[in-house]
């Protein structure tokens, strides 16, 4: 329950930087993430990651090690605890160690960079996070992606496409990836790496080899810009959403890569028409979006879909679900329409 989420203070509810960063670093299979803070911060986040991982059929997570700050550490400084923890995890020879800090660590002023900078043997990557002191959930995601990109060097182009910043806590993360892969395949393109989703440390080296980066959504533009500056890789700012998004996406990717997309667009128009036919029975039904998604883009896309299928959106209409993030591609729209049809028939 929140209290008076004033627009000026909307950032109060934008989530924890640490959680955002962990949603990235825990997808590097052979790395260990160290969370410098009290055990509770690690447990809270692990519990969330555990739940979402089970939803996505991902049973095991890579180790999350807490420095276990106690009251004494908080009073006298926690750098010693971090130093000891790093020695312990480095001895296990992981692919990399990611070090994330917490609110309390920034408050007491531990010099995390200094402690990590003194370590050798495996890459020790500091990801700037500090709970609410560090920004929002999305800040944590972006900081982690930029920090991990630092592990990649120059690479020869291999013609592939990188997927950047998938929402790893999203229930439909695999289905959304599959839809984007389907569209890329229509253009004869394949995925280079999913940065970062279920990845091994040494795969990160090929980050700069892609001809194009596709960002999950526009909140990752700072990451896209960083990668463009570092590797010269252009980017598409978002997955395709809604009924008309896929064609625009195909054209945009083809234009950036210098590919003829006429055949791919034709196929997509056919699928779009087939979808319109398959759900023609919904035309004229009254629906309402309650509650409205917090993201205005989600609301806009839902309105577009309703209009395309000639549904009447009225306040007295049948409440239908509207996802927090807009459906990805035509396939995502089809799944949403099945849910709307179920609601109308309930």
């Amino acid at each position, binding site marked *: 329950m929140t209290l008076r989420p004033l627009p000026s203070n909307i950032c109060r509810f934008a989530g924890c930087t640490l959680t955002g960063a962990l949603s990235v670093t825990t997808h590097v299979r052979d790395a260990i993430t160290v969370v410098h803070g*009290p055990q509770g911060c690690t447990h809270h986040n692990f519990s969330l990651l555990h739940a979402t991982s089970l939803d996505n059929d991902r049973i095991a997570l890579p180790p999350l090690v807490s420095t276990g700050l106690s009251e004494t550490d908080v009073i006298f400084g926690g750098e010693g605890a971090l130093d000891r923890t790093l020695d312990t995890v480095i001895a296990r020879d992981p692919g990399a160690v990611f070090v994330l800090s917490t609110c309390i660590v920034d408050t007491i002023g531990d010099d995390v960079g200094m402690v990590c900078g003194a370590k050798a043997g495996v890459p020790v990557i500091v990801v700037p996070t500090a709970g609410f002191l560090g920004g929002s959930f999305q800040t944590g995601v972006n900081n982690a992606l930029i920090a991990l990109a630092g592990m990649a060097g120059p690479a020869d182009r291999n013609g592939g496409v990188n997927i950047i910043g998938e929402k790893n806590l999203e229930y439909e993360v695999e289905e959304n990836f599959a839809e984007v892969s389907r569209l890329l395949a229509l253009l004869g393109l394949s995925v280079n790496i999913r940065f970062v989703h279920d990845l091994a440390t040494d795969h990160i080296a090929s980050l700069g080899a892609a001809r194009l980066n596709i960002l999950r959504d526009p909140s990752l533009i700072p990451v896209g810009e960083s990668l463009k500056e570092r590797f010269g890789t252009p980017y598409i700012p978002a997955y395709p959403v809604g009924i008309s998004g896929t064609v625009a996406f195909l054209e945009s990717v083809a234009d950036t890569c210098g590919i003829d997309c006429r055949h791919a667009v034709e196929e997509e128009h056919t699928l779009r028409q087939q979808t319109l036919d398959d759900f023609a029975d919904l035309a004229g039904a009254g629906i309402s979006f309650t509650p409205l998604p917090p993201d205005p883009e989600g609301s806009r896309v839902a309105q577009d879909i309703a209009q395309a299928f000639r549904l009447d959106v009225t306040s007295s209409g049948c409440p239908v679900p509207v996802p927090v993030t807009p459906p990805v591609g035509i396939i995502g729209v089809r799944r949403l329409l099945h849910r709307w049809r179920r609601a109308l028939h309930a």
Partner: protein
Amino acid sequence: MPECETPLWPCAMTGAAACLAGFEGISVVIHGSSGCYYYPATLLHAPLHGTFILENEVVFGSGDRLREVIGDLSGKGGRIAVITTCVPSVLGEDIKSMLDGTDVILVDSPGFAGELETGYRAALAVLAPTTDPERWGVNIDGVSLSDPFYEGNVQEVSRLLHCAGIPVGTVFCRDWSEMAGHAAPLTMGTNDDFASGVGKYLGGTLGIPALRATFENLSTAYEGADADPVLAELDVQEERVIHACDKYLRRYDPPGVAVFAGTAYALFAADTLKQYLDAEILAVGTRNDPLAAPAGQYPVEKLTGLEQVARKIAEVSPDLVIGSSFERSVSGDRTFVGIIPPLRGRVRLAHPPLAGTGGTLHFIEEVLNACMDKKT
């Protein structure tokens, strides 16, 4: 506190929230960041409020924000309780004086102060519950919103007390807030890890032997109590347990078991499986520090991290793992039964107990069905 790989137990702040949010009429405010708020809000399934402080409030003081939130809640009935998280706790602000003139309960329970039970006890101590010698009934304690079995436990022990002709006193901590100050003089427990220390303790209700002793104590301590119906029920239901376990043992060997839970539930599970199924208890790993050294016959050690648990499971190679879905995630194809949070990956709608007669029946039923499903 040494480093810990993948800690499996919530912090003291969550424990304080689990205690206070159990009382109707108390509005609980988590004074800290959004990250600290969301975890207890999702774990406890209770309405919590938050101050959601930001960096400028850490630098310039969080008093205005705290007063803003309290102002929003004031006048809406009931008391307000503020739980401080790690950062406000070390900022050195005099939160108590900020709250002068308000009827606000302040619990300093930052995450670094310890684990779930530490915060639960700290919050209960601030509430300072008292007994009322005139109050009829027997209190039920050991109830924490963090426990997936708490509702079933309260229903089951309430039923047993009703069978004995005794009204329920105060339920710690799931009751109206004013009941904390008018508790009955006698208490029985559902989970000693969350013992209230209020009133004279009659005993626990986990497992049939404990139930028998507790209700025998009740019959002598409470004038007019008629424990005979409960004791008779225990005999009948225990016979059913014995019959079901005996039938299982006619076809199958008893399982080797590794149990991971809070101390009270872990020992209940181990004792029950040993007694009725002749199970070999290969390991008991507790999440928390036992209040007293367990006098059981099994190796008991505190295991707080997932890798420790995984190593223990690999070391003792049990047939059956009892724990949470954390344990299940590192148990491979072993048979699993869940008794502590989180219990992910299963639909749970009903409120089964672990305490009381029904608790033992439910637990044995789960174990036997899980073991037999694995065999077939």
